[in-house]
C-alpha cells in the first residue's frame, strides 16, 4: 500500500464518519434547541465540518498528486529508503496481528474480572501478556505475576481504599 492509498483511505473514512455523524448521530443524540444561547449541536456540527473540510481538502490534494503521477515525499521520522521503494514507511505500517495479540487479552481481562474476580484474572492476564511479549521462563513469569497482582492489590485496597474490581475474592 502506498502512502497515497493509505491517506486516501484515512480521509475517506473521516468523510464517511462525518456524514454518519451529520445525518444520524448528531440529530438523534443531541438535545433540541432550547430557544436561547447556541444550539447544543453547534459545536458538534462545526467540529464535523472542520474534519470533513480538511479531509476533503487532503483528498483533492491526493487526487491531484495521483493524476500528476507523483509519489508523496517522505515525511519527517519516516525511512526514506523504504518510502522510495514501496511508497510506504515502516513507521506507518499497521500490524493488526500484533494489535490483536495485546488487545484481546485486555478485553478478556475486562470480561473475566467481572466473573472470576481480580486476583485470578489479573494473574492469568499477566502470564498471557508476558508470553505474548516473548518470555518463556514459566518460573519467572509466575513469580512476576504473583508479585505484581499482590502489590497492586495492596496499593488499591489499603493505599487508596478502593475496592478491587469484580467479585471480591478476599
Amino acid at each position, binding site marked *: 500500500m502506498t502512502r497515497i492509498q493509505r491517506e486516501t483511505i484515512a480521509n475517506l473514512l473521516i468523510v464517511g464518519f462525518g456524514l454518519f455523524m451529520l445525518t444520524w448521530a448528531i440529530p438523534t443524540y443531541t438535545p*433540541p434547541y432550547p430557544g436561547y444561547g447556541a444550539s*447544543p449541536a453547534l459545536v458538534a456540527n462545526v467540529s464535523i465540518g*472542520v*474534519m470533513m473540510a480538511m479531509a476533503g481538502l487532503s483528498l483533492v490534494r491526493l487526487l491531484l498528486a495521483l493524476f500528476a503521477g507523483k509519489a508523496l515525499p517522505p515525511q519527517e521520522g519516516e525511512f526514506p529508503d523504504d518510502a522510495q521503494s514501496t511508497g510506504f514507511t515502516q513507521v506507518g505500517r499497521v500490524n493488526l496481528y*500484533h494489535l490483536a495479540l*495485546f488487545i484481546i487479552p485486555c478485553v478478556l481481562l475486562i470480561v473475566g474480572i467481572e466473573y472470576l474476580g481480580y486476583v485470578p484474572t489479573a494473574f492469568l492476564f499477566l502470564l498471557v501478556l508476558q508470553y505474548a511479549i516473548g518470555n518463556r521462563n514459566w518460573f519467572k513469569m509466575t513469580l*512476576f505475576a504473583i508479585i505484581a497482582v499482590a502489590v497492586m492489590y495492596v496499593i488499591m485496597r489499603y493505599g487508596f481504599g478502593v475496592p478491587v474490581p469484580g467479585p471480591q475474592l478476599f
Partner: protein
Amino acid sequence: MEMIIAGLLDAISPASLMYVFMGVAIGVMVGAIPGINGPMAIALFIPITYYLTPLTAIGFLVGLNKGAFFGGAISSVLLRTPGTPEAAATSWDGYPLTQQGKGEKALRMALYSSVAGDFMSTGVLIAIAAPLAAVALFMGPPEIFALISLALTVIAGIGTNSICRGLIAAALGLLAGLIGTEPVTALPRLTFDIYQLGGGLSLIPVAIGLLAFSEILIQLERFTGKGSGEHAANVFSTKREDRLLSLKEFFANTRTLIRGSAIGIGVGAMPGLGAPVASFMSYDQAMKRSKHKEEFGKGRLEGIGASESANSAVVGASLIPLFVLGIPGNLAVAMLMGAFMIHGMQPGPLMFQENAQLMYGIYGSLVIASLFLAIIGRFGLRLFCKAVEIPAMLLYPIVIFTCIMGAYLGRSDMFDVGVMLTFGVIGYFMRKFDFSYVAFLIGFILVPEWERALQQVVIISENNPTMFFERPVAMGLMALTLFVIGKTFWSNVRGGRGGRAAKA
C-alpha cells in the same frame, strides 16, 4: 501577603514535601526509561492524585514532570536513546563522553544544567504570571472564545507533519469532549444511550489510552521477543576527574546556561512549540557562538549544558500561558490542566483571586521540586542509571497493567477500562496515520471552556455575531485564527498542484 505566607507554609508541610519528593524521584526513574516520557508518566499517575489534596496532587505531578525532563537525559547520555524527545540533543555530546568513560561527568553536567534552567524558569514564572493574570482578567467571553480558537489551530501543528491532519485531530477531540451532559439544557448529548457516558468521558482513561497505552502498543512492535534491557557500559570511571564535575568546568558554561534558559523560557511561554524546539535551538546557538565549534558532537560539556538548560527551562515557563490564560501550551501542561480540573479548579487568571493560597503553594512546590531534583539527582544518579537496564519483558507488562488499573482507579468502574482500551486503539491508529494525538487531547480538554465562552457570547450578544467587531482584541485573535486556517488551506491546495509532490 498573608496568602503568600500561608501558601508557602502549605508547600513545606510534611505531606506536600513527601509527595513532591516522590514525584521527582519517580519522574527521574520513568524519564530514564526509553519510551516513557513526562506526559505519559503524568497520565499514568493522575488517577493516584484523586486521593490527594489539590496542592499535594499538583506538587506531585509538577515534580514528576521536572524529574522526567532530567531523567530523559540519562538514557540519552548512556545509550544514545533519548528517554524523552527533548533529550535528543543531549545525546550528541553526552554519548561520546560515555564512550570515553566520562558518562557520570556528562550526567552531572546534565543535572546541574537542568536545575539551573529550572530555577531560572520558575523565577520568571513567579515574577510575571500574577501581574499578567491581572491584565488577563479584563478579557471577556469573546476574547476567551477567540483565544481558545487560536490556541486550537496553533496547537494543531504539534505531533504531526500536517496541520490539516492536526486540525482534524483537534476537531475529533472537541467532538469527544462534547459527549455527556449538555450544559444549557442539562440533557444527554452524543451518549448513544450508554448511561455511563452521561457524565462525559473521563480525562483519565482517555489520556492513559492515548498517551500511554497506544505508545506501548507501538513500542511492543519493536521490543516483543527482546529478553533483556539495554546495558550501559563504561559509565562510571574509577578516575576522579572523569567522574566529577568541577566548579570551574560548570561555571565555564555560565553564558551557555543563561542563554539556554532564556531560550527555554521564551519557547515555553509560547503555546505550541515545546521543549524539543528549545533544546535544538539552544544547542544550535551554543555551537554557533562557541570558540570550539569543532568539538561539538564529540563530547563537549557545553553542548549538554545548552540542551538541558533549555529543555528544563520550558517546564516552568510553559505554566505561564496556563496560569495567565488557561491555555495549555504543550502536552505535559495539558495533563496538569486536567489534574486541576479533576480537583474542581479551572486554570486561568481567576485562580490568583479564587485560589491565591493554592497558587502560592504551587509556586513553593515548584521551587522545592527544583531543590529535590538537585539532591535526588546528585545522590541517586547511580541508582537511576539502572533504570535503563530494566528488561522489556518486565517493563511492558507492568506498564500495561498499570494503564488498566489506573483507568479503573479514577471512578472505580471497569467501563473506564473499556474507554481506555478504545482510546488506546484510536491512539495507535492516530500515531500510525500521523494524526496528532496531542491536538486531540488538548481539544478534548479545552472544549468545555470553549463552548461555555461561545454560549456566553451568543447570549450576551443576542445572536449577533458582529459583537466581535466591537472587541478589538477578540477580533484580532479571530483574524489570526482565520489566517492560520486560510494558510493551511492555501498550502494544501498549492501542495496538491504539485508543489510538494514535485519536490519529491
